[in-house]
C-alpha cells in the first residue's frame, strides 16, 4: 500500500518543503521563523526516513536520525536560547518588501525546475521530481539571506539552505555516504556554535544584531 | 687619383679665392655706393683696411680665453678649405674627392660655430646677443642651403661639386624647373648668410639690429682683420657656389689648362654681374626686423624643399 503511495508521499513532502521555504521568506517574526525552520527540518527527517524505508537503504536511517537530532532539536533549541539570551524578539524588517520577494521566488522556482529537468530525467530513483524542488529550496534560502538585514535570520537562511542540500542528497542519490553526512553535520554544528560566539561579540560591540552596522569596511 | 696638375689647379683656385675675395667685397660696396649715388670708396679699399688692421696692435678683453684668440684663424682656415672645395675655374680638384657638398656645408657650419662661440667668450651683452642671432639665422639657412645642394645633386646623381658642375655645364642644355626654386632659395640664403640687407646690415653698428658686427665687437687688430677677410671669403664662396649651381657655363672640364685660362675671365665677369645684382637687391629691399628673419629664412627653406619635390615630381 505505502509502497504504492510512497512516491506520491515523497512528492507531497517535497512540496511541503517548498511551501515552508516560501513561508520563511514571507515570515516577519524571528520566533516563528525558527519554528518554520524546525518544521522544515522535520519534513526533511520524514522524507529521509520514508526514502530509507522504501528503498531499504539502511544508512539513510542514520542520516534521518542525524537530521532529527540536529535540525529539529539541537539547532532550533540553540537558536531559541540565543534569542532569549540576546533578547532579540523584534520583527524582522526586510531590505526588499515581501511581495516583491515572493515574485522573485516564483521566478527562481521556475528557473530551478528548468535547470533540474534534464537531470531528473536521468535519475533512476523513484524520487526524480525532488531534485528541482531541492534546488528551488536552496535558491529560496539564498534569496532569504539576501533580503534579511538582521544576523539571526541570515543564519537561519543559511541553515535552511543546508536543509535544501540534504534534501537534494536524499532525493537524488539516496543520500551521500555516511562518513560525509557525519562530516557535514559536524561542520554545521561547529559552525552554529561559532555563530553563537559571534552573536555575543557582535552584540557586545554594537548592542544590536543588525548587519547594517557591519558596513564600515569598504572602498572609498 | 691625385694628379700633379690637379694639385696645381687646386692651389691656383685656392690662392685666387683668397686674393680675390676682398676685391669682390670692394666691388659690391662700390656698386652700392653708385646705386645710392654716393661717391664710392676705391675698389681696393678692403685691402687697405685689412692691411691697416694687421698693423694695429691687438687689444684683448681681460677675461678673453684662448678660444677667443684661436677663433679668427680657425674661421679663416675653415672658409679657405670651403673655398678650396668649390670649383671656380676647373673641375679637376683633388679635394673634391675628399669633401663633397655636405662637407662644404659642414665646414661653413663649423666656421659659424666658432665665430658664435668667440662672440660669447668675453661675455658682453652684444657679443652673446649677436651670437644667438647668428645661430638663429644659421639653423634655418644651413638646411636650406643643404636642400639646394641636394636638388642639384639629385639632378646630377652626385654630391661631389665637381661632378655637379660638369653635369650642369657640359650636358646638353635642359631646363630644370626645380633649379628655379632652388635659385630663389639660394639667393635668400646667401643674403642672410653674408649678413646682407634685408636680414643684416654690414655697414651699421646700430646695436639692436646688427648680427655679425655684434659678434665681432670685441675683436681688434689682426684678429679683426682675419675675421673681415673670412667674411669676404664667405661672400666669395657663396657666389661661387651660386655660379656652380646655376651658371656653371665656361668652367673648364678636367685639367686642360687652356680651359682654365679661358675660364678665368668668364669667372670674373660672372662675379662682377653677381656682385652688381647683390648690390641691386640690397638697394631695393629694406632691412627687416630681426623677428621677421625666421619667416624669411623659413620661406627659403620651404622653397628649397619644394625644389626637391619638384625635381622628384617632374624631372624623372
Amino acid at each position, binding site marked *: 500500500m505505502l509502497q504504492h503511495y510512497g512516491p506520491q508521499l515523497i512528492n507531497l513532502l517535497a512540496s511541503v518543503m517548498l511551501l515552508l521555504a516560501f513561508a520563511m521568506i514571507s515570515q516577519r517574526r524571528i520566533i516563528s521563523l525558527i519554528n518554520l525552520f524546525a518544521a522544515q527540518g522535520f519534513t526533511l527527517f520524514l522524507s529521509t526516513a520514508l526514502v530509507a524505508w522504501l528503498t531499504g537503504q539502511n544508512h539513510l536511517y542514520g542520516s534521518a536520525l542525524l537530521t532529527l537530532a540536529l535540525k529539529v532539536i539541537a539547532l532550533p533549541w540553540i537558536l531559541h536560547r540565543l534569542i532569549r539570551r540576546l533578547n532579540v524578539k523584534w520583527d524582522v524588517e526586510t531590505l526588499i518588501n515581501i511581495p516583491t520577494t515572493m515574485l522573485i521566488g516564483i521566478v527562481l522556482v521556475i528557473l530551478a525546475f528548468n535547470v533540474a529537468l534534464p537531470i531528473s530525467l536521468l535519475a533512476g530513483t523513484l524520487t526524480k521530481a525532488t531534485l528541482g524542488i531541492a534546488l528551488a529550496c536552496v535558491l529560496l534560502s539564498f534569496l532569504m539571506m539576501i533580503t534579511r538585514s538582521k544576523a539571526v535570520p541570515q543564519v537561519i537562511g543559511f541553515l535552511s539552505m543546508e536543509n535544501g542540500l540534504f534534501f537534494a542528497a536524499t532525493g537524488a542519490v539516496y543520500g551521500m555516504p555516511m562518513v560525509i553526512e557525519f562530516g557535514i553535520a559536524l561542520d554545521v554544528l561547529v559552525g552554529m556554535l561559532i555563530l553563537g560566539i559571534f552573536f555575543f561579540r557582535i552584540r557586545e560591540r554594537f548592542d544590536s544584531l543588525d548587519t547594517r552596522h557591519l558596513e564600515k569596511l569598504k572602498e572609498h | *687619383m691625385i694628379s700633379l696638375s690637379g694639385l696645381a689647379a687646386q692651389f691656383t683656385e685656392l690662392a685666387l679665392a683668397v686674393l680675390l675675395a676682398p676685391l669682390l667685397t670692394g666691388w659690391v660696396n662700390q656698386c652700392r655706393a653708385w646705386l645710392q649715388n654716393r661717391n664710392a670708396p676705391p675698389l681696393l679699399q678692403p685691402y687697405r683696411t685689412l692691411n691697416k688692421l694687421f698693423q694695429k696692435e691687438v687689444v684683448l678683453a681681460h677675461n678673453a680665453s684662448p678660444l677667443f684668440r684661436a677663433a679668427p684663424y680657425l674661421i679663416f682656415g675653415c672658409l679657405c678649405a670651403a673655398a678650396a672645395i668649390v670649383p671656380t675655374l676647373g673641375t679637376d680638384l683633388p679635394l673634391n674627392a675628399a669633401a663633397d657638398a655636405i662637407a662644404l656645408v659642414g665646414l661653413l657650419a663649423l666656421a659659424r660655430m666658432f665665430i658664435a662661440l668667440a662672440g660669447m667668450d668675453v661675455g658682453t651683452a652684444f657679443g652673446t646677443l649677436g651670437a644667438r642671432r647668428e645661430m638663429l639665422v644659421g639653423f634655418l639657412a644651413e638646411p636650406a642651403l643643404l636642400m639646394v645642394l641636394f636638388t642639384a645633386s639629385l639632378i646630377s646623381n652626385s*654630391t661631389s661639386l665637381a661632378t655637379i658642375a660638369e653635369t650642369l655645364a657640359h650636358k646638353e642644355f635642359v631646363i630644370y624647373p626645380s633649379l628655379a626654386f632652388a635659385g630663389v632659395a639660394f639667393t635668400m640664403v646667401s643674403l642672410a648668410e653674408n649678413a646682407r640687407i634685408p636680414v643684416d646690415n654690414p655697414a651699421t653698428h646700430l646695436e639692436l639690429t646688427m648680427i655679425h658686427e655684434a659678434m665681432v665687437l670685441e675683436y681688434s687688430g689682426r684678429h679683426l682683420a682675419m675675421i673681415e677677410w673670412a667674411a669676404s671669403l664667405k661672400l666669395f664662396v657663396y657666389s661661387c657656389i651660386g655660379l656652380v649651381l646655376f651658371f656653371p657655363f665656361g668652367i673648364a672640364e678636367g685639367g686642360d689648362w687652356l680651359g682654365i685660362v679661358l675660364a678665368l675671365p668668364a669667372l670674373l665677369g660672372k662675379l662682377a654681374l653677381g656682385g652688381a645684382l647683390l648690390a641691386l637687391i640690397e638697394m631695393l629691399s629694406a632691412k627687416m626686423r630681426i623677428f621677421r628673419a625666421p619667416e624669411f629664412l623659413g620661406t627659403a627653406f620651404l622653397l628649397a624643399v619644394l625644389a626637391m619635390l619638384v625635381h622628384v615630381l617632374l624631372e624623372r
Partner: protein
Amino acid sequence: MFATPLHDVLALACAWLAIGALGMLRTGSIGWATRVLYPAGAIVGLGLAAIALLAIFEPAVSLVLPLGLPDLPFHARLDALSAFFLLLLGSVSAGVSVYAGGYFRQTQGTSPGLICLYFHVFLASMALVMVADDAYFFMVAWETMALSSFFLVTCDHDKPEIRSAGYLYLLIAHIGAIAILLCFGALQAGTGDYTFEHMRGLQPSAAWATAAFLLALVGFGAKAGIVPLHVWLPEAHPAAPSPVSALLSAVMLKTAIYGLIRVTLDLIGSPLWWWGVVALVLGLVSALGGIVFAAVQTDMKRLLAYSSIENVGLIFAGFGLTLIFHGFGMGALAALALTATLFHCLNHAFYKSLLFLCTGSVLHATRERSLGRLGGLIRRMPWVAWCALIGTIAIAGLPPSNGFASEWLLLQAFLFTPGLPQGYLNMLVPVAAAAVALTAALSGYVMVKFFGVVFLGQHREARLAEAHEAGLWERVGLTWLAAACIFLGLVPATVIGLLDPITRTLTGHGIGHLAQGWLFIAPINAERASYSAVLVFAVTALLVTVAWFAVRVFYHGRARRAASWDCGFPDQDARMQDTAEGFGQPVRHVFEPFFRLEQHAPAPDDAHPRFSESAEDRLWYWIYLPVARAVERLTALVTLLQRGRISVYLAYSFVTLLALLLFAR
C-alpha cells in the same frame, strides 16, 4: 682566455657581477669602491671591448648555460651584431668607470658599496642582453638592466622629485618590457619553444609578423625614448649621478636599438616596407621634437637628455630607411642605411657620455645644474672645457668629428632613395631629408648654447670663481672618450669595415669593400660621393697654421689686455649676458606649436615685476594625463563593487550563479 669569445664575454660579465658583490664587502668605504673596484670594472670593460672587436669578424658561436627554466635553459650567442654592441658597451663603459672612480666622492643617500653593486650589475646585465639567445634569458637580462638602472637613478632617494622620476622610469620600462614579452610570445607562435634559433626558423604570417613588429616597436621604443613614449627620459637621466646618466644615454638606449634590430631583421627576417615608414616618421618626429625641446631647457643635464631623444630619433630614422630598402629588396642601400644607423649608435655613445661626464665635473665643481647660474668655466676648468668642446663639435655633427661622418652617411642614404617603386615614398623622402638637415642644424644651435653658456662668458655667480678643475681619474675618463670621438671621426672607413659583417648577415649586402682603403669612404662609388675626414682635417689644419704663421711673419704678435669694449657701454656685469632662456626664446617662437607655453607677465604697476614663461610638453597633457584620469575614473567606478553591505555581496554570487546556470544550459 677560454674556448670561445662567447665564454670570455660571459666570464667578463661575471667579473662585473663579482666586482659589484665585492662592493658589498665594505659598504661604507668610499675608497674601496672608487680606488679599487671602479678601475677594475674599467679594465673589464676594456677587455670586453677587445674581445668583441676580434669577435666581429668571427663566425657566430652559441652556448647553452645550465641555468634557466627546466625546458628553457639560458641560450647565449655571439654574432657580429652582438659583438659590435658589446664593443660599444665595453669601450664606453671603460671611460665611464674610470671617471666614476674619481666622481663618487661623497655618498648621496645610498652607500657607495651599494651604488657600486648597482653600477656593475647594470653593466653586466647590458652585456648579457647583447648575448642572450632565447626570449627568457633576454627578458631576464633586460629587466635586471631596468631594475638596476632604476636603483641607480634613485640613488639620491631623499629628494621626492628624484623618486617620482625613478617611478615614472620604471613604470614605462616595465610596460615596455611586457610589450616585448608579448612580441616574443607572438614570435614563438604557441609552440613552447622560446629560443631565438627556433624563432628564426619560423616564417610568421604577415599579420603575426606585423603584430610582433608593432609590439617590439612599442617595447623597445619605450626604452629608447621615442616620442610619444619619451616622457620618462628627460626626468630620469638628469636625476641620476652623472656617470650613470652617461651610461643610460650612451649605452642603455642602444640596447633598445639592438633589440629592435635583432627582432626585426634577424628574428622576423622578412620586414614589410611600411614598417620602415612607421619607424622613419616616428624617428623624425622624435628627432625634431627632441632637439627643439633641448633648445629651451635651462638645466644642462635635461638639455643633454632631450638631445639624446633627438639622436635616438635620427637612429630610428636610419633604421626605418633600412627597413624600407630591405622591404623593397634593395640590399645594397639597406646595407648603407644600416651602416649609417649603427655608426651613429657608436658615435652617440661616445660623445653623449663625454658630455654627460663633463656636466658631472661641472656639477662637482659648482654644485650647480641650472644654466642660468653657470658661465666662464673655461677659465676655471680648461681641461673639462676643451673635452666638452670636442663633444660639442661632435654632437653638432660638424666635420671632421665622428658625428659628421655618420650624419654624412645617413644623408647619402636619403639621397639615394628616389627610385623606390612607391610614389608617396618618393615624396616623403625629400621631406624626411629636410627634417634631418634641420635637426642637425638645430643641434648646432643647441650645442652652442650649451657650451657658450656653461663655459664661456663671465661667471654668472661669484662663487664660480672657486670652481676647481676635475680630478685625475675624471680627466683620464674624459680624455679617453674625447679621443675616441676624434679617432672615430678620422677613420670612418675602418668603422665601416667593422660594420661590414653585420650588414652582410642582416641584409645580405655590405658596403665595406666600397670604403677605398682607410682614407676615403664612398658609399656607392667615388663618382657619386666620397669623403675623407683625414684630408679635410689635414687641409683645414694646414691652412689655419699657415695663416697663423703668415700673420706672425709679415706682421707682429703684439697684444694688450684691457677692459672689454662692448660698444663703449660703461658698467656692465655678468647679468647682462644672454641667458639660457634668451637662447631658447627664438626657438620657442619659431616652433611654438610644439610647446604648451605659460606666461606670467607682470602688471604695469608692479612693485617687483617678475616675468616667467614655461614651455611644457603638450603630449603630457594630450596623452598621459587623460590616460591617468581615465584609469582614475575606472577605479572610482570599480569601488562601487565593494560598498560593504553583505546582502549586496550575497546578491553578487547569487546572480553569478543564476547567470552561469542559464549559460550552462
